């Protein structure tokens, strides 16, 4: 399989698994307005996933559904950050802040890459994720600078997810070989600047440097991805070829 396929699947899997987690919030968010907001965000992520997995599939004769529903856990290449369980609302907003800020920096670079399809997907998605960053920022500020309880939960969420942020900026041989791939390592400084500015303003304290989890890009996942995939895939696998 080609490097371009592997790279596109990484981006597509990030978006797909993030979309699945975001969708779990629908009808469970703190207020109706937030249900709709998270529904919009989840569908943005799903749209990105579809475009990317369609493209990846076209490179090796599979469909987006083949890739989403009929791959095993070890074949998924998403960041572990995307697959972690939702936790409370503060966790959702911490994850969205970390992930969308990363996606925004990545897509900004990718939209000028030499591959027309990837550049096109990134060009459309960059506006979507800019809004995701804004949405997460608004909530991190309000929860962090809110009540004693909301501050405590926001702080806990920012710290709990921090050990999963290092993986976003890992460079590897694939990135080195593939000319159109964006090397994420140099994005880290700007990512930290943006994220830490939000954390500072929220009155939360910066998470301390800690052990960083890794493995998603090579198919090694947390125990949580299997359960997520079971829910995502079981209908398609129980009724192969069904449409609805």
């Amino acid at each position: 399989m080609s490097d371009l396929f592997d790279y596109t699947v990484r981006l597509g899997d990030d978006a797909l698994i993030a979309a699945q987690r975001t969708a779990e919030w629908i009808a469970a968010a703190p207020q109706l307005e937030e249900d709709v907001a998270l529904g919009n965000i989840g569908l943005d992520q799903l749209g990105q996933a579809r475009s990317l997995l369609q493209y990846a599939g076209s490179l090796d004769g599979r469909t987006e559904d083949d890739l989403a529903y009929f791959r095993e856990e070890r074949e998924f290449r998403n960041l572990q950050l995307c697959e972690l369980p939702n936790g409370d609302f503060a966790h959702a907003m911490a994850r969205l802040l970390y992930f969308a800020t990363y996606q925004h920096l990545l897509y900004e670079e990718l939209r000028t890459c030499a591959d027309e399809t990837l550049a096109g997907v990134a060009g459309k998605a960059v506006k979507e994720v800019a809004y995701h960053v804004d949405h997460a920022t608004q909530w991190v500020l309000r929860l962090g600078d809110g009540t004693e309880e909301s501050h405590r939960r926001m702080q806990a969420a920012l710290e709990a997810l921090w050990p999963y942020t290092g993986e976003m900026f890992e460079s590897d041989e694939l990135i080195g070989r593939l000319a159109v791939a964006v090397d994420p390592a140099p994005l880290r400084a700007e990512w930290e600047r943006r994220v830490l500015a939000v954390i500072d303003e929220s009155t939360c304290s910066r998470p301390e440097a800690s052990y960083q989890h890794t493995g998603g890009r090579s198919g090694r996942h947390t125990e949580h991805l299997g359960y997520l995939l079971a829910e995502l895939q079981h209908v398609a696998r129980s009724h192969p070829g069904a449409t609805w």
Partner: protein
Amino acid sequence: MSIEPLWEVFVRSRRGLSHTHVGSLHAPDATMALRNARDVYTRRQEGVSIWVVRATDITASSPDEKDEFFDPAGDKVYRHPTFYEVPEGVEHL
């Protein structure tokens, strides 16, 4: 979660048109109200501009005052431009 203030939402559907009231929503403050309005009321390209106004900041006419407020306008046909006949030969009117 505690009940958040109610906001009235106005959306301008296209440039050149006025903002039109589209509904209301709850939000903790104006910034979030604007974002919620974007998510709830413009997700199908309904607008290019949004206003939000705290519902308590709107002073509304009372249904009890309907008679004296609105009925007297009912028979004032001379307030409509169509009431007047344009004399022949008048240009630029």
